[in-house]
């Protein structure tokens, strides 16, 4: 009797285990399916971009992924067009300077807000954070009026100035500096460093992952920025790459193959930046408690 009871219990337990395992694997299958669908949805525009860049104009509106008559003529045309290099250089220059400025200024402000106690600190922090809630579209008009008043229209400075420091970067860096123990800074203070040296020599190296993550965010943001550079620039020489690419669409026709070729080339620097810093960005995003 006792033995059969034990057997029954064992069978029940085994059945329960199997059922639980089945449910787990079903759930996992659904998860994978969703991820796969998400992956496809994300990668398809890039695949079409690459595919279109190897097509002749007549084939652009065919949705085949592999061109019937592949060509590299589009690349030759875009690379031989002198304007493209100008836009590329503009974008690179603007994204690089903006990134460097953000890394320096955001971390400096974040450091001060985090590590120093002074009247109004909290209010300043809230004021900076509140700017995150204002959409870019609303800021464009005051930026334009400001640029116009200061004679910054159609200049590098005009394109760059709104993004030289960001509320998001300041917030991110402040949060990261919270993880730096005060003992490090006090030890350096006793060792005779001034406050700027402490920030640069001690605090900054300790938040390197955050700096890398911030650098990538800012670089990508500025590399792909469209609305503000479009508004503030007038001459083609001052265009950034995303703005310049729009010149391939004229009233009569849109030269998609050229736009896609330019876009494909423009992804190269971002890919390089991302590949070099990806371990930092992942660590940085995880440390910041943000979702990627």
């Amino acid at each position, binding site marked *: 009797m006792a033995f059969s009871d034990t057997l029954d219990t064992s069978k029940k337990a085994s059945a329960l285990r199997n059922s639980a395992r089945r449910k787990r694997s079903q759930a996992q299958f659904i998860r994978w399916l969703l991820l796969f669908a998400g992956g496809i949805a994300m990668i398809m525009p890039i695949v079409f971009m690459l595919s279109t860049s190897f097509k002749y104009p007549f084939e652009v509106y065919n949705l085949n992924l592999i061109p019937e008559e592949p060509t590299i003529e589009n690349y030759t045309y875009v690379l031989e067009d002198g304007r493209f290099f100008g836009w590329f250089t503009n974008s690179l220059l603007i994204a690089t300077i903006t990134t460097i400025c953000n890394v320096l200024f955001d971390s400096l402000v974040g450091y001060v807000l985090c590590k120093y106690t002074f009247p109004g600190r909290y209010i300043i922090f809230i004021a900076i954070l509140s700017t995150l809630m204002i959409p870019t579209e609303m800021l464009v008009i005051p930026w334009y009026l400001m640029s116009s008043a200061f004679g910054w229209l159609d200049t590098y400075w005009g394109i760059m100035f709104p993004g030289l420091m960001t509320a998001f970067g300041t917030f991110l860096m402040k949060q990261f500096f919270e993880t730096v*123990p005060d*003992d*490090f800074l*006090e*030890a*350096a*203070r*006793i*060792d*005779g*460093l001034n406050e700027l040296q402490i920030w640069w020599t*001690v605090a900054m*190296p*300790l938040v*390197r992952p955050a700096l890398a993550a911030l650098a990538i965010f800012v670089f990508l943001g500025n590399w792909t920025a469209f609305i503000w550079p479009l508004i503030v620039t007038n001459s083609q020489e001052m265009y950034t790459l995303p703005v310049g690419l729009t010149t391939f669409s004229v009233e009569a026709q849109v030269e998609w193959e050229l736009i896609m070729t330019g876009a494909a080339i423009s992804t190269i620097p971002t890919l390089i930046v991302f590949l070099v810093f990806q371990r930092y960005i992942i660590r940085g995003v995880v440390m910041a408690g943000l979702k990627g």
Partner: protein
Amino acid sequence: MTTVSLNNLVKSYGDTQVLHGINLDIQSGEFVVLVGPSGCGKSTTLRMIAGLEEISAGDIRIGGDVVNDMEPKERNIAMVFQNYAIYPHMTVRKNIGFGLRTSKLSKDEKDARINEVSGILELTDLLDRKPNQLSGGQRQRVAIGRAMVRDPAAFLFDEPLSNLDAQLRTQMRLEIKKLHQRVGNTIIFVTHDQVEAMTMADRIVIMKDGHIQQVGTPFEVFYEPANIFVAQFIGAPSMNMLNGIVKGETIALDNGTSVQVPTTKLSENQQVAVGLRPDALLVQEGEGLFSGEVSVIEPLGTDTLAYVKVGEKEVIAKASGRTPPAVGDTVNLHAAPEAIHLFDAHTGEAIR
């Protein structure tokens, strides 16, 4: 080497005063330990000496000069922190040499100083390692090395051994003591561990609630505690304390027993506390001070601690490690008359 003096040192955070007029003179080359429970103000005092906390009132003098308004770097002191504060992105060599960044020494002189210090602290083979490749004890030595390399007037240690395991703590305790004997600098050391204080200090400063309770050598604070707090804080296990009232030649204790003590400084019906250190209260044959039933025993090897119920109170006594009493035994407890400490029950001050 230098003297450090604190004169009526006060620290307030808003309306809350945490240090209430600390007076302390530390001699040149002295090893002074500030000890007390959490929140007693010992770390705040140390940080004020270092210049990391502002002084609300009073003076701090280092080498005779008032340093109240001096920056930490101008005070010529070095500090070792509880969590080492060695920079994870720098090698041991850079960490030790960090204190010399602002020095006017030549590179060769700096290297020579780093090599000398790393030699003293047995870090020579680890100079090119990063902190994450070091053990806790090695990291602590690097932190000490960074402090030593500047040859400061005084060293400040803020609970530097708290993060180490028991064995390493004992080892580092010895190393710091040897180091002090070797270099002879003034050391101010903060700890909450009375064993560290007793084993390392030339003088111990016992603090509670922002007041100094007693300043004295380890011998003095152990054998001549100034008040009940010091008596119970120093020594492990804590001193047994029994309340009583003076009745003629004896003190009637609230556990129903009485002890005979010299009562020249006591007045009739005065309420007192009678203190007896567990290692002075011995389980022995024959009629003693008290007798009671053993409720718990703690074998420690050489000795055994016996928790004995005497009347309503439980006291801790020392018994032989080889032939300990058993739980439930009735034992006699003996103490030499000179081992009995008397305190005023109201003020807590020692009666001598």
